[in-house]
């Protein structure tokens, strides 16, 4: 008698659980239209990033990824070296004109639907139209969380081997966030840590694949992963801040890295064009100071540079989606800013 009462209760609990699950599943399917929103897409080792001996992390070589960022589809294809770029050529002909673009996620193409819509490839399209007799190839060497240190290493260990004609450098936001550490080191070991070879990929990647057929399981695990920050590369490869009263402490390291990039590019026979950095709220004192420091540095050393911070309007939501990343209009403005400079300076005809 007592045994059957227990069984009945147990059956009731199971039934309640199944009912709750079915109701949740139906609700999720009815209410959350964007099936990709809660896709846990960016765990550090889940296909997008990989460990690298000379970088804190690198793009996964030859990856073909479809991401869903804030409801938008983003298609990323990386080449054999893990860059969101064309495959690197092994030879160079007389008509070839190779451009390398270094930067962070603004160059990589945060929330950019395809490689072709990143500003480096928009620039390529503009230059190819203007100089049809040349084979213009623009290679996007930007990477999320990239700084002058990652770009310097990429230029030295990969870029120069491509025999570039022109190097474009667009850095600011990430370098600024690397400044002002009490324990600042010139090798950025105060700021970055290595991406571990094995990273927990989060709940969504841990449950059996068949369970993800349920939208409830899929979205719940994805939401929990996002809440826990499992998807956040920066939590994995960046060290905690140790604030120095001087928020610009270490700025000479940024300038020294830019100088070294200049020396390496020129030593390899390439021109190099630098830039100020477009912050949405460009009049913030810290941002304004940073950009003015760059302007003074470029001028003092006689370097080529484009003042993107002045060319692109501030506080314009049709240009920036956040403090630094661009809309398509913003990326087109970036490409146009560099294109106009290259054409005005006659850099292609000179070679």
């Amino acid at each position, binding site marked *: 008698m007592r045994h059957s009462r227990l069984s009945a209760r147990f059956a009731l609990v199971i039934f309640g659980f199944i009912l709750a699950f079915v109701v949740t599943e139906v609700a999720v399917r009815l209410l959350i239209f964007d099936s990709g929103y809660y896709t846990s897409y960016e765990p550090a080792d889940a296909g997008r990033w990989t460990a690298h001996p*000379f970088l804190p992390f690198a793009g996964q070589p030859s990856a073909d990824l479809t991401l869903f960022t804030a409801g938008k589809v983003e298609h990323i294809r990386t080449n054999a070296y893990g860059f969101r770029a064309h495959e690197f050529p092994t030879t160079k002909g007389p008509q070839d004109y190779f451009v390398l673009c270094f930067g962070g996620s603004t160059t990589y193409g945060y929330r950019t639907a395809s490689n072709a819509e990143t500003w480096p490839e928009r620039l390529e399209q503009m230059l190819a139209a203007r100089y049809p007799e040349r084979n213009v190839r623009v290679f996007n060497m930007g990477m999320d969380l990239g700084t002058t240190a990652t770009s*310097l290493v990429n230029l030295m260990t990969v870029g*120069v081997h491509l025999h570039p004609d022109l190097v474009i450098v667009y850095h600011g936001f990430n370098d600024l966030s690397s400044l002002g550490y009490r324990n600042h080191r010139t090798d950025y070991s105060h700021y970055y840590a290595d991406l571990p070879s094995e990273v927990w990929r989060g709940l969504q990647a841990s449950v059996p694949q068949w369970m993800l057929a349920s939208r409830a399981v899929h979205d719940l695990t994805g939401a929990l992963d996002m809440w826990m920050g499992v998807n956040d590369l920066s939590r994995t490869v960046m060290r905690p801040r140790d604030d120095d009263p001087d928020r610009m402490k270490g700025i000479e390291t940024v300038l020294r890295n830019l100088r070294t990039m200049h020396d390496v590019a020129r*030593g390899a026979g390439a021109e190099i064009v630098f830039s100020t950095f477009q912050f949405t709220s460009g009049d913030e004192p810290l941002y304004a100071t940073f950009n003015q420091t760059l302007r003074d540095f470029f001028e003092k050393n006689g370097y080529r540079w484009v003042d993107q911070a002045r060319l692109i309007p501030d506080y314009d939501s049709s240009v920036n989606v956040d403090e630094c990343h661009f809309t398509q209009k913003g990326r087109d403005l970036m490409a146009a800013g560099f294109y106009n400079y290259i054409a005005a300076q006659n850099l292609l005809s000179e070679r």
Partner: protein
Amino acid sequence: MSAPITRGNLQPTKAHGSLLSRGRILVAGFGVVLGLVVAEIGLRFAVNPSDLRVGGVGGARWVAHPFLPFAGRPGAEIALHVKQVDARVLAKNNAYGFRAHEFPEEKHPEDFFIICLGGSTTWGAAAASNAETWPEILERLLQQRYPHRNVKAFNFGTDFANSVYSIVTLSLVGVYVRPDLVIVYHGWNDIAPAKASSYRTDYSHHFADFDPAATPRGLQVNLPGGIRTLYTALLVTFVIDDWMGVNDIATYVIEDRGGRSWSPDTAAARVLENLRTIHSIARGHGAQVIFSTFQFFDGAFPFNDQYRDFFEGNGFLYVDQDRLIADGDPALQFDIGHFTKKGREAMAQNFFDYIVAQNLLGER
């Protein structure tokens, strides 16, 4: 008829056996303790404790680094035993993990700073102290010759470092020392990556990141603090860790993927691009650069001819150590590439002679 078994009959036998075994154990225990005490006292009189400390990869010698596959542990003092020559090595690292003087924060007009890039031959395999590495021998030679200058030679050599490793250390650390002169001595450690069929310009086919968490740390480093003060415990764990190869960083960071598909010209050209980059960095920061051929014990380094052509074709300064140092002389080298003290002195002397002949200090 046997006597009845009584408690009284059994007791003496049991007591006798028990006494014997306890006594034996006591004697044995006393003997072990006495032996240990004697060994401890003997060791304390006979050896330096630093000779017994293991500089294991996971223990004291190496750390992970975001821009390098591995780096020297900052501020470490490392005692090593080099088996081939039965040499005791004591290396003192600076705050950046190099076996070098601390880097100066300032530079004065009389300062002349030299950075020496290289692998273990520059680091000083079998060099008993930092002072016996060739960069610091060179420093003394130059200081004697130019007493009015403050000559400092900073040893950037690192075990298994090659041209890509040195590009990164020069650009992210070296240029901040504001060197007047950069000396580059690379060879052996570039051969394997340059001739690999899986070659990548960033050498990611060759190196992997050092992961301290996944690396065995050896016995000695796991000894409780109190026991680690005992010389005998240090000796035993030193021998076992040494036998297990705990010091061998190569096991953990060097990957050898696939075969070898190469010609000497192709492989050498891959390295020469890196040397050109080193030249660009150094010259861009106002330093002179001296390159070198690589001295092999059997004279068979495959890239030396290409190196010479490259240096001369580009008008780069270089010292032909390969021709200046005799091959096949065990008084100079104790294996295929590493130097004895006499060999390190010859290296330093050759660079010194060149610097003086080129008047590189007088020029500045």
